[in-house]
């Protein structure tokens, strides 16, 4: 027997590890391909067969003009009154098209079982959306109808005596036949009715179909998108499962936790700063100065990424980015944040890939895991509901919303990995400064009816960007001034300022010097004044939740906040005169029966059919569009409808994870961790409260701010770093 050469064991082990990695990758690819195929095919085991599903949908449209037997269209004696009468007749006929007797005739003509046809007539008259929002009975009926293969939607013109028929069917020919049959079916019904009632045919309303119906495939490429998305999710899920299994096995064999890998690992102590930061940079030789500047903490660093993060945070707080878009026509909506963020994420990926020792470090915390759970549930809901969402033409919308969720999470991951523990106080102060600027601008808008954020953005940005308009003197349905600050909605501004408020309050509680306490006190008063200046009831509710959270965690130090009450009583009426009284008046019992309150309460009943029909994973992340259904003024309800009980639990888990991670550092009073943790916990509670007041995830300022503060908490609570090899 020959002796084994030295090092052969290591080589064999290396080959074995390499082959296992390749096998794992192959398993992931197989899982991805299987998920992709399963999403667009019907698979049967006995007998074994894979049948591709017909996911394509065709649509056709046809316009019908209603006129008198002696046409008015070229009659110079026609009056407005004549046309108003005809327009009302057209609305009546449009509603008749979707009635049972006409549908029966349509089905007969098109060769389709009438029970297979879902039909609806849109209300196009100029009425408040509240009056047309579907209630629970209507939604239950719509959910039943959504499963039907054929659909007719009739849309009367709001001003002219005409209506348009939109038909949906599995093929273009069937869709065109259905649209043409809709007009013919209506005609048949009218003829039958006239015959039964012995009506004079010369007096019949003239129905003129303008050309034959025009059809096309309306969800082209749906198969590719669904298969691609499902395949990606399958690949990622398999990879995640294998990685977790490998880690667990390694942990089991080693008997200990891997260094730096577990979220439960004790937080690193706030040790001395790096060597380069100890000796002042200006006292170092010229060659070392660059290194020192790079190693120094933000804002004294030359590292690019912290500066990019700071820039993005300034944009979040001060720029109405969600209403700023490129003036060029693009296939997808690209607001300013989704133009800027990819560059920051790209720079982050490059720095990570380059392995720079001072570059980003990913340290997994419970908050990361909670966010990952949210993404997993969102993706799972989409993969499972992909086919039905494709049939209702909502899959694209969901994918867009998933992109927005990815934007939120990428900011969290970037901030949590770029910002160093020693930089957190500077970033916290910076956040407070931005919040105060936001409050000042909002107060300015309240006082002088001039939105500085919108106007400055419009002036500063080059012409290629289009900035939405903000009418600073506009009133809402309830007659309140619309003061929106840098946000799209007044409520959004309230949420932003409420999440900035804890930083000022915690600073006030922890400050030792009188000057600092006065400064923090003024900041807190400005933030509350800015929120109150929006005239929203939530301006009281959200800050109160912040005060209560601080009271819960810092009962003993609460007395320090007492002078703040005096400062607020004096400052807020000076800064926003009349606003406190107006908001307080809205909370009186007699004024709580307004639309904004009744809409919210009616939402609970209206979403029941959606919730019960998709209880666990919802109807698909981001698929419940307020333009198609109703405006849900509560994020928690939206989550329940979109991603079911599991999605709602994941959403609450993210907020809960922030509070849970913050609890331990909060107990260590006076430390850096305590300051950050207390601010983050109060911001999380404020975020939870505003989640009950409006659909907060649809308006990106608030989620970005919440997650950036949560990321700072993740930095201070992350496991100790291992030195890089």
């Amino acid at each position, binding site marked *: 027997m020959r002796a084994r050469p030295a090092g052969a064991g290591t080589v064999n082990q290396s080959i074995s590890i390499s082959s296992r*990695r390749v096998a794992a990758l192959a398993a992931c690819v197989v899982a991805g391909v299987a998920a992709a195929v399963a999403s667009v095919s019907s698979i049967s085991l006995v007998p074994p067969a894979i049948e591709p599903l017909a996911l394509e949908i065709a*649509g*056709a*449209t046809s*316009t019908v*003009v209603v*006129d008198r037997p*002696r*046409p008015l*269209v*070229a*009659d*110079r*004696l*026609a*009056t*407005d009154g004549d*046309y108003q009468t005809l327009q009302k007749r057209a609305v009546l006929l449009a509603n008749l098209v979707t009635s049972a007797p006409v549908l029966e005739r349509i089905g007969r003509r098109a060769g389709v079982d009438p029970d297979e046809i879902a039909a609806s007539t*849109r209300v196009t008259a100029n009425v408040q959306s509240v009056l047309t929002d579907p209630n629970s009975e209507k939604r239950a009926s719509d959910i039943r109808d959504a499963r039907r293969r054929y*659909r007719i*939607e009739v*849309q009367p013109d*709001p*001003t*002219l005596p*005409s209506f*348009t028929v*939109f038909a*949906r069917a599995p093929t273009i020919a069937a869709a065109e036949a259905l649209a043409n049959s809709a007009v013919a079916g209506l005609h048949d019904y009218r003829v039958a009715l006239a015959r039964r009632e012995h009506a004079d045919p010369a007096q019949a309303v003239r129905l*003129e179909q*303008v*050309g*034959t119906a025009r*059809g*096309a*495939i*309306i*969800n*082209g490429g749906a198969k590719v998108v669904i298969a691609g998305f499902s395949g990606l999710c399958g690949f990622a899920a398999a990879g995640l499962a294998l*990685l977790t299994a*490998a880690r667990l*096995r*390694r942990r089991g064999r080693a008997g200990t936790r891997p260094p730096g890998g577990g979220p439960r690992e004790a937080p690193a102590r706030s040790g001395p700063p790096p060597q380069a930061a100890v000796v002042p940079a200006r006292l170092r030789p010229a060659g070392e100065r660059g290194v020192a500047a790079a190693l120094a903490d933000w804002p004294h660093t*030359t*590292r*690019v990424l912290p500066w990019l993060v700071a820039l993005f945070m300034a944009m979040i707080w001060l720029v109405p980015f969600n209403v700023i878009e490129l003036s060029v026509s693009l296939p997808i909506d690209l607001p300013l944040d989704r133009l800027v963020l990819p560059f920051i994420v*790209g720079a982050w*990926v*490059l*720095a*990570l*890939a*380059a*392995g*720079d020792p*001072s*570059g980003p470090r990913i340290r997994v915390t419970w908050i990361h895991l909670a966010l990952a759970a949210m993404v997993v549930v969102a993706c799972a809901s989409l993969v499972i509901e992909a086919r039905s969402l494709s049939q209702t*033409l*909502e899959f694209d919308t969901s994918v867009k919303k998933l992109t927005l969720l990815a934007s939120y999470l990428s900011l969290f991951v970037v901030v949590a990995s770029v910002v160093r523990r020693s930089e957190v106080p500077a970033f916290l102060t910076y956040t407070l400064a931005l919040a105060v600027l936001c409050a000042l601008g909002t107060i300015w808008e309240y006082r002088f009816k001039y939105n500085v954020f919108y106007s400055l953005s419009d002036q500063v940005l080059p012409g290629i960007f289009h900035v939405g308009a903000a009418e600073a003197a506009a009133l809402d349905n309830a007659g309140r001034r619309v003061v929106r600050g840098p946000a799209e909605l007044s409520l959004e501004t309230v949420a932003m300022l409420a999440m900035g408020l804890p930083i000022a309050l915690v600073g006030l509680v922890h400050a030792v010097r009188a000057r600092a306490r006065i400064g923090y006190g003024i900041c807190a008063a400005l933030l509350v004044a800015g929120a109150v200046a929006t005239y929203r009831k939530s301006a009281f509710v959200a800050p109160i939740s912040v005060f209560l959270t601080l009271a819960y965690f810092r009962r003993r130090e609460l007395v320090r906040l007492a002078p703040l009450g005096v400062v607020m009583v004096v400052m807020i009426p000076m800064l926003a005169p009349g606003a406190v009284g107006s908001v307080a008046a809205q909370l009186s019992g007699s004024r709580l029966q307004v639309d904004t309150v009744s809409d919210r309460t009616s939402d609970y009943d209206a979403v029941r059919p959606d919730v019960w029909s998709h209880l666990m994973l919802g109807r698909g992340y981001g698929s419940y569009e307020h*333009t198609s259904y109703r405006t849900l003024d509560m994020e928690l309800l939206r989550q329940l409808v979109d991603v079911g009980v599991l999605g709602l639990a994941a959403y609450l888990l993210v907020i809960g994870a922030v509070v849970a991670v913050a609890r331990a550092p909060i107990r260590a009073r006076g430390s850096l961790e305590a300051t950050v943790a207390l601010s983050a916990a109060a911001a999380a509670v404020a975020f939870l409260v505003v989640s009950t007041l409006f659909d907060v995830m649809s308006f990106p300022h608030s989620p970005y701010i919440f997650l950036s503060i949560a990321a700072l908490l993740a930095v201070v609570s992350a496991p100790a770093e291992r030195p890089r090899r």
Partner: protein
Amino acid sequence: MTEVVSVLRVLARRRIAIAAGAIAAVAAGLALAGELPLGPAVAVPRPSAVASARVLVDTHRSMVGDLNGGTEAIGEQATLLAELLADDAQVASIAWVAGVASASLDVRVAARPSAGTPGTLASKIVEATATSGRPYVVTVEPYPSVSIIAIETRAPDVGTATRLARATSGVLAQLVAARAPARWRSLVAEPLGTVRSLEIAGSSRRGPLLGFVAAFVLFALWCCALVVATGLGRLWRATPVAP
């Protein structure tokens, strides 16, 4: 700037790959600019022409010069007349007058804002049926507030585009006359000025600036891909596997 230095350090170790990428990017840029006989620039350009005309829907005693002219509902009537131009019979008439095959002509009315909320079935159908791929296209757009109908046509040559615009204007006048209850109660469709036409250059050459930008972007993306690939390689080696 340490991140930039680190990235440059990684790139410095991949000099050959960078050089290959640079050559490929320059070649792609030159091809896009039309300097190389490759890519989309060498495709045979398809000529195209557009023409436009405007028609005023008016009364015999013109409302332009007579306060008693016009009707109360003339805006609605102009909009409906424009709508009726898309009818099969009118399309056939326009095609016959312009001397084109009816099957190759597409007459469409510009979508009104009430066409449907974005994302709904109606808006998706409007979007999907907006193009037909036919070589001759007539688009009519009514302006109800001024009872003017704008006609835009597109055809492979200026002559046909102009003929189509004239034919549409003429068919509209015939339609108005045919639908009038009596001559004295009739509206009229008066062309506003002559038909204006324009040939659109069919060249697919994009110019040197676009070529330069494309080359730069491709090269930058290639460099990024190299850095990311290096990082992924390191991650691949560091990924734990179950023993």
